[in-house]
């Protein structure tokens, strides 16, 4: 029955929510020299009035993921007034809402609904949809209809969204670092005199200490797979390729990108799973972890957990939030970049905007985007809300105060919509009162940044899609329990895992990925 199929697809979204967190948070590509165009360009009056023809009034339909804010209608009205005046255009802004957004996104594109611009991202299937021809080629239109954007986006970023010879999206321009890392209870560390967490051994010592002193607490409560999987990848410096998250086929390290291997067959893996077994037996996480539906972070405020996997951005949010509600709990953050001392910025198309094939006015849509990115009036309005209501510019123009003076924060909630697609660094502002550790970390990352050579490798798994599905199954059924140390006999389980992987065609998958990666490296001149 269609109910069953639709339920299947809709639950894709539910699990994909978790997957998006992983995909979005793992280090991805971007340009090391994140374009720092001059401020003047951003604030310049970008009215090339001798530009494209805007004599016809046009109404556009745009789609963003997620939810509107309760004041979005007001904001969009204001936006449309400005657009009407400047570009003889209005925009109807729609949202997919968060439940089943992936299904809805898919339906919007495949049904050919008339949409003029849609949020696009590597974690929203951008590459897949682009390959399948869902988006328009913007190559010709960009210099004409979005001249500012065309200039300011670095060449590397354009190449990230180019497939074949066509440019399928406008990536956001904002160097973001979202490496994996762990939030942990610093107050407990101090209390029990545990060493500072700076490597795997000290991490182990921390968890050991917590477990010994607080027998009721499970250091990593709830679902531990994210914590352990990212730890495993980053500790060994196994680099996943093209946005893959399983980590079965990886490059053996950043410095050896061409050495693509199947990780479960490496000696490091065998050693690792033995260690994980010992950790599991010591009770660092629950035996029921694979079936738990709760995040480790849920348990920290309840005093039942100590560790939570986060990237620096969401760590900041979590830390701030916890501080507000539970001021006695002190949290600190350990980024996994410290294992090997380098950081990789996100892929530019981690957030971006694309134009579906069905658009009737792609050129006008690009013009609106150009304005949105570059004109601070537009940018501030759509990204931060109405000045004087949702925010005020702080004394330092790069910061804003949320909400504006005199507004009740309970009534006027922060204006937050999925505005990430049109980010443009010079126009971005930070909210005052954020987690102070964040800026320090960003500086640390910028200092040790290296180019992202793995994420942009586009893998169209079509020739090996059967093997991919089969290997993924085996990873879930045999790999995950093994990596979480839940099996009774590690050696036997490892052997079974390896055998099943072979059966599923892991070698064929390995060859394919190796081939694609090598082609990419050759093209880009990566050693």
């Amino acid at each position, binding site marked *: 029955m269609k109910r069953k199929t639709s339920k299947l697809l809709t639950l894709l979204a539910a699990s994909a929510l978790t997957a998006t967190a992983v995909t979005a948070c793992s280090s991805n590509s971007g340009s090391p020299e994140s374009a720092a165009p001059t401020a003047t360009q951003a604030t310049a009056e970008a009215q090339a009035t001798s530009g494209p023809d805007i004599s016809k009034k046009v109404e556009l339909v745009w789609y963003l993921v997620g939810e509107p804010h309760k004041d979005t209608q007001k904001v969009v009205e204001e936006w449309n007034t400005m657009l009407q005046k400047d570009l003889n255009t209005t925009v109807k802004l729609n949202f997919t809402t968060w439940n089943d957004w992936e299904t809805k996104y898919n339906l919007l594109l495949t049904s050919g609904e008339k949409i003029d611009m849609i949020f696009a991202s590597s974690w929203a299937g951008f590459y897949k949809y682009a390959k399948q021809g869902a988006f328009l080629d913007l190559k010709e239109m960009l210099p004409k209809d979005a001249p500012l954007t065309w200039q300011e986006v670095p060449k590397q970023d354009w190449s990230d969204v180019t497939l074949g010879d066509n440019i399928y999206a406008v990536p956001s321009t904002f160097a973001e670092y979202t490496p994996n890392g762990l939030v942990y209870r610093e107050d407990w560390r101090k209390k029990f005199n545990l060493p500072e967490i700076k490597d795997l051994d000290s991490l182990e010592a921390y968890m050991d200490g917590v477990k010994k002193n607080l027998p009721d607490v499970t250091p990593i409560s709830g679902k531990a797979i994210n914590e352990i999987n990212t730890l495993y990848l980053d500790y060994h410096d196994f680099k996943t390729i093209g946005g893959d998250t399983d980590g079965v086929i990886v490059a053996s390290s950043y410095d050896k990108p061409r050495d693509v291997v199947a990780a479960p067959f490496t000696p490091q893996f065998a050693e690792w799973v033995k260690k994980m077994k010992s950790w599991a037996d010591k009770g660092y996480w*629950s035996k029921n972890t694979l079936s738990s539906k709760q995040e480790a972070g849920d348990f920290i405020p309840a005093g039942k957990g100590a560790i939570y996997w986060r990237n620096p951005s969401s760590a900041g949010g979590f830390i701030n939030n916890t501080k507000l509600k539970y001021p006695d709990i002190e949290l600190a953050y350990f980024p996994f970049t410290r294992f090997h001392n380098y950081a990789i910025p996100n892929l530019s198309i981690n957030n971006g905007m694309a134009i579906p094939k069905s658009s009737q006015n792609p050129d006008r849509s690009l013009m609106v985007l150009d304005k949105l990115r570059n004109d601070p009036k537009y940018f501030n309005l759509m990204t931060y809300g109405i000045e004087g209501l949702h925010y005020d510019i702080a004394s330092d123009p790069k910061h804003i105060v949320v909400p504006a003076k005199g507004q009740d924060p309970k009534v006027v909630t922060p204006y937050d919509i999925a505005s990430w697609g049109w980010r443009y660094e010079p126009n971005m502002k930070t909210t005052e009162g954020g987690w102070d550790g964040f800026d320090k970390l960003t500086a640390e990352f910028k200092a040790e940044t290296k180019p992202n050579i793995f994420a942009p490798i586009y893998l169209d798994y079509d020739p090996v899609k*059967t093997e991919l*599905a089969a290997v993924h199954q085996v990873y879930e059924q045999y790999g995950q329990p093994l990596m979480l140390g839940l099996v009774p006999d590690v050696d036997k389980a490892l052997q079974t895992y390896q055998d099943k992987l072979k059966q599923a065609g892991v070698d064929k998958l390995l060859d394919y990925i190796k081939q694609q990666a090598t082609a990419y490296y050759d093209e880009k001149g990566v050693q």
Partner: protein
Amino acid sequence: MLSLVAYLQLPGHPRFHYDYVAFINRAYGMTRSPGRREIEVKVGAKRGFWYELNKSKVLFLMILPVLLYFLIFNYIPMVGIYYAFTRFDFNGGLFGSPFVGWDNFKFLFQSGTLTQLIKNTVLYNIAFILLGNVLQIVTAVFLSQIPGKVYKRVAQTVMFLPHFISWVLVGAFSYQMFNSDNGVVNTLLKELAHPTYDFYLQPEPWKYIITGFYIWKTLGYGAVIYLAAIMSISDEYYEAARIDGANVFQQIRHITLPLLVPTFVLLILFSLGGILKGQFDLFYQIIGGNGMLYNATDILDTYVFRSLTVNFDIGMGTAAGLFQSFFGFLLVLVVNFIIKKTREDYALF
């Protein structure tokens, strides 16, 4: 309404006969004699389509909206089955995308677990259908007979509640009960000085647990159907039996149950079509991503779901659905055929 005296004087009075249904029907002259039209048809006086259309004009008109509805919402979209044989491309759309034959079906067979999956799916469904229906019948029978209107209304309402509890909550619930850290069951075991049991590491108990949850959730809903069917049984039959001295158990055995058989067969037949399809929500919420339990609890739907999360592919998804549908279809055809040969009016079509 027959008087007692008249009743006792009827020929073929069923003392020691027990087939009250047949008896009453005969008494009223309501045996299953074919209608005039039926006779016409059987004798081969079948006329053409337009003749029939004209003769049963009103009936056709009455069913026309429904037929149109299915045409629009079901049959026309069925062309989508073709996706299973293509590699989808936006530029080609449904019919323009390249044809790839059976490629999309390969992933079902590649991981070597297909037999296990089919076995699990089928066995769970059989357990659900049989145990579920039997329990529902028992419940309905009791509910219809025991006295106490208020009690019955309350009980019926309460038994309906699980239907509203989403599988998400059931999953959370199940975790609360069975987890080895502070789950209810293990806490109980500890109190009884019994070693704890790691439910989430052992596949064996789950077939019972899952079946239990399914039956619990569908009991109230399913019992309603049987209750309604019981309500359609005329009092006359029971009167006849009562007068004859049959007690409650005998009444149920000879009247209620036989008259529920058509409904039972219908529901079973209906469910057979979905024999390879599963209650995805149920399994996904209760088992989640726990590979250790897959041997005993993985069904086709969850397997397909996981395959699609890694690489969402319309072709593969449709292929899996087609595979499931096709098997169910074959099964239903076979069983329906068999039933038609034995008791024609029990057949689904």
